[in-house]
């Protein structure tokens, strides 16, 4: 099965444009290549797994030591909650990239949709992290609370937060699983008989054989689940913001803040996808799938999200600035200008100024390294920002009342905090590397579908790629 896209490459005419064209493979070539890489377990993979597992184990030990110390002092749990916030902001938001690009039928999304959905599985880790984080919360009575003191049953404290997180985790697993069904069927068909992974793939593929009905339902079902995921993600970010940030600070009333957190999620989720593409391209052998097309195209929404970062922050900040109540002055000191000014301005630099300064230049957007460097900076900025918005509120001495009477001093992380932050982020990456051996990290069927819609044609004095719209 040869794609007609090859014709141009063999035509022998030295016209402009052919050098920019990504290689056009056949469906069979993609299938063999991806399944081959999916099956292989190299020493490098094992070494990375080992390091990640070790770091995660250290993080778990630090967590246990912290838990033994009790949950009464909220300031002890600030960095734990900040890590949870970062994982939700960066990793759990990644499937929105895939869902959003499916809505817009972006052709270039095909190779990267799966890895974005795999990152969403981090929601399972966050679901577990929410339990101790909830235990660290002070009594909601007399404190601003999104549940309006609505009671949870004694047998299931904090039921409402847990249901929201569970719904998000269920949705992300479903989104990944449904879209992976055809590739699990591929693994079932092509992995050697008797292998455990073949049996697992066979079980998970649920007997998919690629009927017309299946494809029609999968297409629409995927869009529905994507829409539900986006709606649920916004709800979860709102709840996290309200529970561990807004609700911990007397007088902090800011309807923009949850939206700001969601927007940061979009930015950091996009950045995680970019960095993962770079890693898979450079060390995973997937350079045929993650080319200039993907990096150049995703750099544009990343720039847009960086601009929105500033808009969202400013819309929130200006309210307190003009309000000028004593409590709001303290709030500004706490969040932006006082002891937490360095994290804030670092975040401003890494999440807004640096992406803007870099991405206004097309040669930087149209490169592999440029978007990767910016994405790495965005992720670092997101982590610092989550520390600011969660650790500062958690470190307050008094979470009750109507006025913020004190400005908390900067809380440096101790050795346990560092182990928790590094360990749980390693845990999320470990989860990705494990799931990437359960389902192929590149969506074979989506890439295969795209191959049929692309042809290389001569257009006057150059070659152009023609992409069909099938809907």
């Amino acid at each position, binding site marked *: *099965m040869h794609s007609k896209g090859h014709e141009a490459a063999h035509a022998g005419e030295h016209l402009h444009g052919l050098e920019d064209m990504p290689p056009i493979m*056949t*469906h*069979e070539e993609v*299938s*063999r290549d991806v399944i081959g890489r999916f099956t292989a377990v190299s020493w490098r993979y094992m070494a990375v797994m080992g390091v990640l597992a070790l770091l995660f184990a250290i993080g778990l030990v630090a967590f246990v030591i912290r838990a033994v110390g009790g949950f009464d002092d909220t300031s002890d749990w600030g960095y734990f909650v900040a890590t949870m916030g970062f994982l939700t902001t960066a990793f759990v938001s990644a499937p929105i990239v895939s869902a959003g690009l499916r809505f817009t039928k972006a052709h270039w999304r095909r190779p990267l949709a799966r890895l974005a959905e795999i990152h969403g599985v981090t929601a399972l880790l966050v679901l577990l992290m929410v339990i101790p984080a909830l235990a660290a919360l002070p009594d909601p009575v007399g404190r601003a609370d*999104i*549940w*309006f*003191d*609505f*009671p949870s049953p004694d047998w299931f404290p904090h039921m*409402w937060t847990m*249901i*929201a997180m*569970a*719904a998000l985790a*269920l*949705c992300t697993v*479903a989104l990944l699983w*449904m879209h992976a*069904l*055809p590739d699990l*069927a*591929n693994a079932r*068909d*092509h992995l050697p008989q008797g292998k455990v992974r073949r049996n697992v793939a066979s079980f998970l593929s*649920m*007997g*998919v*054989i*690629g*009927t*017309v*009905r*299946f*494809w*029609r*339902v*999968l*297409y*629409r*079902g995927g869009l*529905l*689940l994507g829409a*539900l995921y986006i*709606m*649920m993600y916004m*709800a979860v970010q709102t709840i996290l913001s309200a529970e561990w940030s807004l609700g911990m600070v007397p007088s902090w009333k800011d309807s923009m803040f949850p939206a700001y957190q969601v927007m940061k999620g979009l930015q950091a989720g996009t950045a995680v996808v970019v960095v993962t593409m770079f890693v898979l391209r450079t060390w995973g052998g997937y350079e045929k799938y993650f080319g200039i097309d993907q990096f150049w195209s995703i750099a544009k929404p990343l720039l847009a999200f960086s601009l929105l970062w500033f808009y969202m922050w400013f819309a929130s900040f200006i309210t307190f600035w003009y309000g000028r109540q004593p409590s709001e002055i303290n709030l500004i000191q706490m969040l932006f200008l006082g002891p937490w000014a360095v994290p804030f301005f670092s975040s401003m630099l890494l999440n807004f100024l640096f992406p803007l300064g870099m991405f206004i230049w097309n040669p930087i957007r149209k490169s592999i390294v440029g978007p990767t460097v910016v994405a790495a900076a965005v992720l670092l900025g997101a982590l610092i920002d989550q520390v600011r918005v969660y650790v500062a509120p958690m470190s307050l001495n008094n979470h009750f009342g109507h006025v913020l009477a004190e400005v908390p001093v900067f809380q440096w992380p101790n050795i346990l905090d560092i182990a928790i932050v590094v360990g749980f982020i390693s845990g999320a990456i470990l989860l990705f590397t494990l799931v990437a051996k359960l389902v192929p990290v590149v969506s*074979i*069927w*989506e890439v*295969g*579908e795209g191959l*049929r819609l692309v042809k290389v044609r001569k257009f006057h004095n150059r070659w152009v790629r023609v992409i069909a719209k*099938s*809907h």
Partner: protein
Amino acid sequence: MANQRILGLYPDPDKAAEAMNRLKHNGFPAEDLDIYTGSPFPEGTFGEHEPQHRLYVFPFAGAVIGFSLAMLVTIGTQISYPLITGGKPILSIPPMTIIAYEFTMLGAIIATVVGILFESRIPRRTLGVYDERITDGFIGIVVSCPAERGRAAEQSLRASGAVDIKTEA
């Protein structure tokens, strides 16, 4: 007499489309023909019968069930424990809204997953007549027909360039 299912395997979409045309021309209704592929083709590529599904009903039904459950829980709790908070009515809408949103979404998500499985007709215990090359990009045309028409179906599939034919009784 019982129906049998015959699979013709094609490496090329052009030949698969030709096979579909030939089968329909030879009196096999489109409803009795199915196409197995490793990735989706645009609707109507092979002149295939478009199956009807009711997937959209599932999230809607799930959302209605979830919302109803949320109303039951929130109204029931507030009536059972009538605590006046902040001078607000016992049944105040804002706290119920957030919980209703959660339950509605949860119901919709669960129902959508069930809907995808049900409308796709999976899980399937056996693959039936199938070929592993389909996930490599080959196209399978499956004919369901009475056994006495099996030979005619097979001839149509072969005449269109099938590289392999498989039969399931």
